[in-house]
């Protein structure tokens, strides 16, 4: 047997490979819940088939997200049941949709609600109905379990998302000064959730500049602080601080008391709320019914959806407001409604990655363009979980939204799969050995973007008021896309309808 140098090297490296490399898994998956096609049919004003039946009904709710469902919840609680809720997708819930596999249920978008304070009376009422709030106490099963949040920085995990490792005295001083500023804004009572409760023009000037400009004006330049504030804007608005109204940036931090209880959450995120609402209201919902035209008809409206024409007295328009000019006959185009494109992915993990730290509920990576991931099994009572689903969040915040929307459309699933794994690999080196499936949901208009001027926009102000017997109800009227705003707008619209129809 003659051994050449090449044989020798091959033998050595084969021995090394055999000992250290486990095979990566084959990863399956696809795009799911795409709604581009339907949106583009509306945008391009395509021809829709003529209605074959006419249904007369006093009220129609357009859109089955949290705003629409909340309007329906209000109707039902007030004993009014002469209405129908039309949802374009096959699954209601909008940004509170969920999915389910053999391991767990998991969110597709919004995944928590902060513990509501007294001003969010409708949220408290809903949570009382759903058994989350009992005799003034929160059911601890629904409060986010410990450990809640981890941030990966400098090659290790820390507790909480506000950076605590490697801060210089100057960084600390700026965090302190920022927190003091936030406390003063909070004490003013102008920044509330829902925002209508504290609405005042006192800080309207803040809406004229970007959050980044305001930070610069106030000499906030600590890299760690700016990372943290940008993270917050990307997380709640899908935008960088430079593209966010300073009023909205301040609102994020000043609108809630610093909470110790942790947010309210479920394995399927806010999908749990959708599920509970659908269990009560499902009989009113018509899914897979895309409304393609809303027409004035005397004092009332004709709403065309699929092959049905609904003749009603009142309409609650709870779908995204940017769709309205394409649906409502004679409505002028809108200018002040901008939206952030997002991508969420659910990763099925057949085994847990090696990690010295127990995973938290929300896991964020410093200096990543993504928002990290949420572990769906975290809120399980199980003590042993060897499989799970991670929901990976990625707001495409950098660059113009239109270009990012184009990229969402053009890149194939394999591209996003690799991008997601690449991001996770920085933290979990063995992630490819654990993941068996990655489903990706692309949302061109995931959430309204509170750009400078958006919050106090006259266009918004006009749409918040009744348009005859048509009431807008989407959270984008508030300019920020959060559960509480959606619910508040939905309930408020329902109250108007009940008033118009003369119901007690």
């Amino acid at each position, binding site marked *: 047997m003659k*051994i050449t140098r090449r044989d020798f090297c091959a033998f050595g490296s084969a021995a090394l490979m055999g000992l*250290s490399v486990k095979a990566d898994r084959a990863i399956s998956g696809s795009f799911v819940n795409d709604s581009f096609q339907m949106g583009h049919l509306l945008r391009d004003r395509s021809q829709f088939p003529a209605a074959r039946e006419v249904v007369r009904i006093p009220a129609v709710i357009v859109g089955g997200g949290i705003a629409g469902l909340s309007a329906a919840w209000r109707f039902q609680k007030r004993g009014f049941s002469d209405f129908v809720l039309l949802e374009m997708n096959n699954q209601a819930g909008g940004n509170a949709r969920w999915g389910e596999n053999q391991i767990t249920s998991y969110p597709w978008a919004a995944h928590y609600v902060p513990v509501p304070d007294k001003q969010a009376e409708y949220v408290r009422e809903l949570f009382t109905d759903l058994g989350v709030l009992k005799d003034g106490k929160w059911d601890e099963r629904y409060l986010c*379990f*410990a450990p809640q949040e981890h941030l990966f920085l400098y090659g290790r995990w820390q507790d909480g998302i506000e950076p605590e490792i490697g801060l210089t005295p100057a960084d600390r001083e700026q965090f302190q000064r920022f927190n003091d500023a936030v406390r003063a804004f909070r004490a003013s009572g102008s920044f509330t959730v829902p925002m209508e409760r504290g609405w005042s023009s006192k800080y309207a000037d803040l809406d004229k500049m970007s959050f980044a400009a305001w930070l610069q004006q106030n000499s906030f330049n600590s890299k760690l602080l700016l990372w943290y504030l940008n993270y917050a804007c990307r997380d709640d608005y899908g935008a960088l601080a430079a593209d966010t109204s300073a009023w909205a940036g301040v609102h994020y931090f000043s609108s809630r008391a610093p909470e110790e*209880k942790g947010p309210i959450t479920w394995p399927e995120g806010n999908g749990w709320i959708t599920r509970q609402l659908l269990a009560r209201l499902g009989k009113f919902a018509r899914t897979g019914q895309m409304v393609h035209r809303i027409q004035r008809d005397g004092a009332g409206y004709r709403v065309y959806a699929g092959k049905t024409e609904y003749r009603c007295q009142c309409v609650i328009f709870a779908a995204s407001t940017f769709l309205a000019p394409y649906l409502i006959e004679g409505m002028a185009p809108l200018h002040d409604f901008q939206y952030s494109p997002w991508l969420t992915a659910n990763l099925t993990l057949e085994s847990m990655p090696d990690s010295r730290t127990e995973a938290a509920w929300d896991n964020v990576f410093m200096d990543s363009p993504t928002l990290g991931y949420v572990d769906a099994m975290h809120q399980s009572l199980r*003590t*042993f979980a060897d499989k799970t689903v991670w929901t990976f969040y990625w707001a495409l915040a950098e660059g113009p939204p239109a270009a990012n929307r184009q990229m969402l459309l053009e890149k194939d699933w394999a591209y996003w799969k690799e991008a997601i794994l690449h991001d996770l690999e920085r933290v979990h080196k063995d992630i490819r050995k654990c993941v068996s499936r990655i489903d990706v949901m692309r949302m061109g208009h995931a959430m309204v973007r509170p750009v400078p001027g958006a919050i106090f926009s006259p266009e918004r102000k006009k749409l918040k008021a009744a348009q005859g017997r048509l009431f807008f109800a989407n959270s984008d009227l508030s300019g920020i896309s959060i559960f509480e705003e959606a619910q508040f707008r939905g309930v408020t619209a329902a109250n108007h309808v009940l008033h118009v129809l003369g119901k007690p």
Partner: protein
Amino acid sequence: MAILLFISILLIAACGLIYELIAGAVASYLVGDSIFQFSTVIGSYLFAMGIGSFLSRFIRRGLAYRFIWIELIVAVVGGFSSSLLFLAFAFTQGFQLFLYLIVIVLGILVGLEIPLLMRIIRHRYHFHEVVSHVLTFDYIGALFASILFPVVLVPQLGLVRSALFFGIVNGAVALWSTFLFKEHLSVARRLQAVCCAVIILLSVGLVEGKRITGLAEDNIYADEIIFSRDTHYQHIVLTKWKDDLRLFLNSHLQFSSRDEYRYHEALVHPGLAAVPVPRHVLVLGGGDGLAVREVLKYPQVESLTLVDLDPEMTRLFSTNPFLTGLNQRSFLSPKVHIINADAFLWLDSSQDFFDFIIVDFPDPTNYSLGKLYTTVFYSTLAHHLSRQGMFVVQSTSPMFARKSFWCIVETVKQAGFKVYPYHTYVPSFGEWGYVLASQHDYTPPTSLPGGMRFLTLAGLPSMFDFPPDMAQVTMPANHLNDQVLVRTYDQEWREISH
């Protein structure tokens, strides 16, 4: 030159003895009964060496070449012997077969070494010198190895890496021999390449030793390991030293057979003996069947449900003779129903009621286990207690983890129960704590079942008395969303271990 030759003889002898010692030690660790293991391993090894010596007569030509090849095979087989044996134990039923196969193969090869070597160097010295030099260094090597093995190798490197290390030594001797016997070899460079490959292979093994077996845990356990298995849920290890059998789950001591009766009598009887008519009993955790053994001392108990996560654990304690001896075959009682499930989930979905519930989980070392020590968990237990029912919780040490203990007491209290904390001394654990909880007042029992080795009625009141060094400290309750217990426990035990 001569001294180098004799050092190689010394090293070869040392390697030979090390492999033999390792085989004996691995067999004793894994199977137990060290006298039998060592005796049969040494016997078959020596016998195989005899076979090797006999076979050496059939090697007539290319002595040096063949000698080096034998060295290399010994290096690989001997170097990986310990890893192979651990893997054979973990993944096959035929550990003994592998053991004696490896011992005999190594014995034959080692038996070939010395006769061949003597013949290779016979022209350099007189015959009587050859015999004298070779055997002298052979025996010095044996002494060297036999002292090195227990004093340095096992404590520092462990069994897996000791074998690999000596495999490398063997490989190095082979490489060295290619220079020593240069004049006998026509193809030295080829052999040298193979020697290097073997040394690299073994070095990789040495670096990756832990990954090869996952059993490089010789340093953790003081006693001999008689059973070691990675189940789906945990790492189960049983160690034995004389009559002391110890169970470790994920390296945490669960019991020592010498004093577990103290722990389990104290866990079960202060509560259960005080329940007027205990018909239905639930044990959560406790997959060793030892708490069940205590419960079965009550003839009134009609049914006993045990919920433990790990089926391998309950199977082991239902079948292994050592262990069924310890739990008195408690799992085989017709009254006992074993359910392998996640306790919190099972409890949450069960509709059953119990007169007494024993909560015997591992200590709250992480957030997952910490869920089993929360207000929500104890409130869930409340839905499964009969009107007169009570439950008891093993609650770590009020001495070493005083804050953690009183945190558990506070948590049970905030879940709406009257709490009766108590403690006892278990030598292998130290001072240990329990919390008895009920929705009504607790009256200590007036009689205990027969067969107590530790507990007496007279001794009970002192268990409920906490001396100043364990007295109550004010602690918040442990909540699912704020697991103060896990943080406190981690901190307290870390202080102890430093």
